[in-house]
């Protein structure tokens, strides 16, 4: 990495094309599992300009299949290459890059450029594959902290994330209280329930039992466990949508005019899920999927205090904004309330919004006036308090 404070790619009211950068770290990182990563790369993007005090930085943490490409375009004039949270981050957006220096980073174990199972293991000269150590949310936070050091960010104005990203925001506030002024935790949970873990394990089993998986070393065989990944994604996708939104979008609609009495695609929902599965299997790494789901399963910060979430959150000094969505059953509002109630018990500053939305877990990625207004209000407040 050449310049730790790159010039922002700012155009009129859009971010325009944003170029990812790579930061190399040669200081070993000891992981929660005890394994040690001797060196690693983190791929990241930044939007907006870091102020002289380094106090306007916002970290966006991605969820299971997210990337460092949060906002802006990868390819000029191609809206299909917009970042995964482009509706939230940008000039004039709720997380306004006219005021904030926003950082998106691909997490360790990822498959979008940061060191992960598809990277080359320097010890063998071959892809890590199944030998890549399992990483936990706290490991990501430690790696992100080193990136923050590199970028000149001492304190994040906010650490923000949805779903698994929200867990990273919580973890940041607990582990580095002095480095987080605001934690924005959207559509998350303080830990996974048995049902959540069960879904994850079915997804993992789909991958692990795919004959093309080869124990995680499929790269060397020149194949990809497409069938497993596809099934994993199809299953995941069901849990990201609500029953209502599926009924509304697809109902019992048929692709053709009539029943065909076979196993090919008949219902629209089958077509949709298979399409999503195929698309995902075409670019996502199977080992990364396994690692990400395991990081979800392992997340449980309350464990450090014998299950007392309030005791753990009492370490945080950040102001929290917790947001949930009424139709999210993957991480329901009740799960967000667990976080909020623990914050209340710990006497921490918190605001909680339960957004009325039909869009299930995916709602955190969608444009919704109430949701975006709350986010906008929170970030405007951060700007006002900094003045």
């Amino acid at each position, binding site marked *: 990495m050449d310049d730790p404070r790159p010039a922002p790619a700012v155009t009129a009211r859009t971010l325009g094309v944003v170029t990812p950068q790579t930061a190399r770290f040669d200081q070993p990182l000891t992981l929660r599992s005890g394994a040690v990563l001797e060196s690693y790369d983190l791929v990241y993007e930044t939007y907006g300009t870091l102020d002289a005090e380094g106090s306007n930085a916002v970290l966006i943490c991605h969820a299971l299949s997210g990337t460092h490409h949060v906002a802006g375009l990868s390819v000029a004039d191609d809206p299909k290459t917009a970042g995964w949270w482009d509706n939230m981050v940008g000039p004039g957006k709720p997380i306004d890059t006219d005021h904030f220096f926003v950082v998106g980073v691909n997490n360790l174990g990822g498959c979008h450029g940061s060191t992960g199972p598809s990277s080359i293991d320097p010890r063998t000269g071959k892809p890590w594959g199944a030998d890549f150590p399992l990483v936990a949310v706290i490991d990501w936070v430690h790696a992100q902290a080193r990136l923050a050091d590199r970028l000149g960010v001492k304190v994040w104005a906010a650490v923000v994330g949805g779903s698994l990203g929200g867990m990273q925001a919580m973890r940041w506030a607990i582990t580095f209280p002095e480095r987080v002024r605001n934690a924005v935790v959207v559509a998350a949970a303080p830990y996974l329930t048995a049902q959540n873990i069960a879904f994850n394990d079915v997804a993992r089993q789909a991958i692990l039992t795919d004959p093309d998986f080869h124990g995680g070393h499929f790269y060397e065989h020149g194949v990809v466990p497409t069938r497993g990944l596809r099934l994993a994604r199809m299953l995941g996708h069901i849990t990201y949508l609500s029953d209502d939104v599926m009924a509304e979008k697809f109902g019992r609609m048929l692709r053709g005019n009539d029943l065909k009495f076979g196993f090919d695609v008949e219902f629209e929902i089958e077509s949709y899920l298979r399409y999503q599965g195929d698309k995902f299997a075409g670019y996502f790494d199977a080992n990364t999927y396994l690692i990400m789901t395991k990081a979800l399963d392992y997340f449980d910060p309350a464990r450090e205090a014998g299950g007392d979430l309030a005791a753990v959150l009492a370490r945080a000094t950040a102001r929290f904004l917790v947001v949930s969505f009424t139709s999210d059953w993957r991480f329901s509002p009740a799960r967000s309330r667990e976080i909020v109630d623990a914050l*209340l018990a710990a006497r921490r500053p918190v*605001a909680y*919004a339960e957004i*009325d939305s039909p869009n299930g877990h995916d709602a955190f990625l969608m444009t919704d006036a109430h949701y975006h207004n709350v986010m906008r209000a929170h970030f405007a*407040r951060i700007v006002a308090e900094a003045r």
Partner: protein
Amino acid sequence: MNRAAGQRQRADLDAIVRWVGEGSRVLDLGCGDGHLLTRLQRHKRVEGYGVDFDIDSVTQCVAAGINVIQSDLERGLSGFGDQAFDHVILSHTLQAMHSTERIVREMLRVGREGIVSFPNFGYWRHRWQVIRGRMPVSEDLPYQWFDTPNIHLCTLRDFELFCQQHGVHILERLVLTENRPVSSMHNLLGATALYRIEALR
């Protein structure tokens, strides 16, 4: 949550600010845009939290930097710990709630002390309008019968009887009309009532 009437009563809020202890923990139920909590923070440096069901109110609180929990008061205060607050405030909201008994019980579970204010249905101007054959409309009851959120209106005597029957001890009462304290015939001359209450132990 309905605070339209409450916002008109400056003296009502003044009294609440007086009653709340310096640096205490306060929960404001039906906090609206957070104006009362803002005042309490400014004048009493309280550790304040608001509850409101309306997303726009929640957003206004977030914009003002007020701690706020979006929640339906009708479903109680589960999630709030026993005796977690010094004061739990229910200002001009009681009369608009379905589950009156539950919210009073919950207030006194969560708070050491409750502060309740409501428009007095027994105020002579209200009684007079009923005698003349109409539902009362006033500063304190600014709605028509068909659009009012107020479903559980009561008089001072009604509320005090309710307290007696529900193990609620009245610590202090303040009765106001046009922002001035009323000193006699409260149930007839008082437009608004405020009570400091606690659970009988």
